[in-house]
């Protein structure tokens, strides 16, 4: 009977990964088996050739977006599937399954209520539906915004003082990204608040990265923007830029108004609004910037960036 060749151990032998016993057996076999000895020499020579190749040098500079690197995500803890959560799921699968079913049922119920009418949630007046039966905004959700055509603006990077920033990007087109930022996450009732919202779209040169010597040019768009009070249907601001005008819900006597000197026109990415005086400290405001699917390019997904502001 022909002894089994040990070519499956070549790599381990080369890397010195064999146990002493395996090493002894391997060396004895290679000494006695001429085909294995030749094959092992050929094996090592192939590795040597690869390792002798010089490191190539990137032929041109890497072009980076003209905007600053993304600032750190908000410091507030978020609920996500961390390894800790996954460990819990593994240990308590039945509980997890029951929880998942409950979540699905709640979502279905909310969806059913939400689709009772054809109006998008964001388009509802601040006082809610006529019969008050609409579901409140969940604590964290993407709100449908009636927006079909974001408006071109004079773009700029978020101001340096805007430390709170979040963004969304199309994985297949990373240079295209939606940025939503604010100077701080705590706002005061009765005072004005400002947010930054901009979609940076690479133009044709950016579609072929590295094809030009300078940084890829981009154009800027103002996304659809809404500010809603968490756990209510109340919208403080809905900005569908398709008409380049504001769709401001009727004020309810709470003092909501567009701040004087606001940049709500399609001139730039900064949007200012006044926080109503009637909101209690701790109330959360959800700021949602949206780009509809298919807007940037055929097949591109919808992009949504969210920030949560808290009344201080």
């Amino acid at each position, binding site marked *: 009977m022909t002894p089994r060749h040990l070519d*499956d151990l070549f790599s381990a032998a080369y890397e010195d990964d064999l146990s002493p016993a395996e090493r002894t057996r391997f060396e004895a076999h290679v000494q006695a088996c001429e085909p294995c000895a030749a094959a092992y020499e050929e094996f090592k*020579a192939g590795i040597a*050739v690869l390792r002798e*190749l010089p*490191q190539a040098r990137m032929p041109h500079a890497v072009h*980076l977006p003209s905007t600053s690197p993304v*600032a750190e995500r908000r410091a507030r803890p978020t609920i996500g599937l961390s390894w800790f959560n996954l460990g819990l799921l593994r240990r308590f699968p039945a509980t997890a399954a029951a929880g998942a079913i409950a979540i699905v049922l709640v979502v279905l119920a909310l969806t059913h209520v939400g689709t009772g009418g054809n109006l998008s949630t964001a388009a509802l007046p601040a006082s809610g539906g006529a019969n008050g039966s609409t579901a409140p905004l969940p604590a964290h959700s993407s709100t449908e915004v009636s927006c079909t055509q974001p408006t071109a603006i004079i773009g700029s990077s978020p101001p340096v003082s805007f430390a709170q920033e979040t963004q969304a990007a199309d994985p297949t087109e990373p*240079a295209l990204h939606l940025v939503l930022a604010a100077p701080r996450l705590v706002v005061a009732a009765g005072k004005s608040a400002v947010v930054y919202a901009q979609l940076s779209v690479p133009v044709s040169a950016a579609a072929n*990265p*590295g094809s030009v010597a300078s940084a890829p040019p981009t154009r800027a768009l103002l996304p659809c923007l809404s500010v809603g009070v968490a756990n209510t249907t109340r919208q403080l601001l809905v900005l569908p830029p398709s008409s380049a005008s504001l769709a401001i819900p009727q004020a309810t006597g709470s003092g909501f108004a567009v701040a004087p000197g606001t940049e709500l026109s399609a001139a730039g990415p900064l949007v200012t609004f006044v926080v109503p005086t009637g909101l209690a400290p701790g109330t959360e405001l959800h700021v949602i910037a949206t780009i509809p699917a298919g807007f940037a390019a055929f097949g591109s997904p919808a992009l949504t960036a969210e920030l949560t502001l808290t009344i201080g």
Partner: protein
Amino acid sequence: MPARTLKCMDDEALLERARRGDRDAFAAIVTRHQDELYTMALRILGTPADAADVVQETFLRAYVRIPVLRGQTIRAWLFRVAINCSHDVQRRTVRRPADPLEDAEGNIVELPDPALGPEASALARERVAAVREALLTLHPDFRAVVVLRDVNDLSYEEMSAALRIPIGTVKSRLNRSRSMLAKALRGTAAAPGFAEEHA
């Protein structure tokens, strides 16, 4: 901050600065890793223009992922993205002949050692071409593993993270890849003894 200072910082410290909006810090990360990523992509794809595009795309993706990147693992992450981008390029492009020593504009990007004479330079060039051809005969998955180990010198752990396969699979796949490469090099300018036979 002076470029020299940034150069001395590790990836985690550079990322931390980049998260705070320091573009130069991210540029330092690019400078640190671009050549090794380019080398990997060039060995996998065989064409300098495609390899440069892969590196460009990899850093663009990193740029928008700065908030979630971690310095301790950014090297493996960059390699993983570059490999995925390389596979995307392979899927959407037909193999085209290209001189591996020239980029799309005809610039020499892999100069032979100037200390070599003309004949030795020609031989070195033949060896590079032979290795390139041999690598291209491997399945992309096998090509990637042998390039990561024997060209880029990644550890098993880094390879496991970059390829998203267990370390045991890395080792077994590496053994097969190296064996296939050795066979593919037989009789080529990169085979053992070729230089002596043609001296």
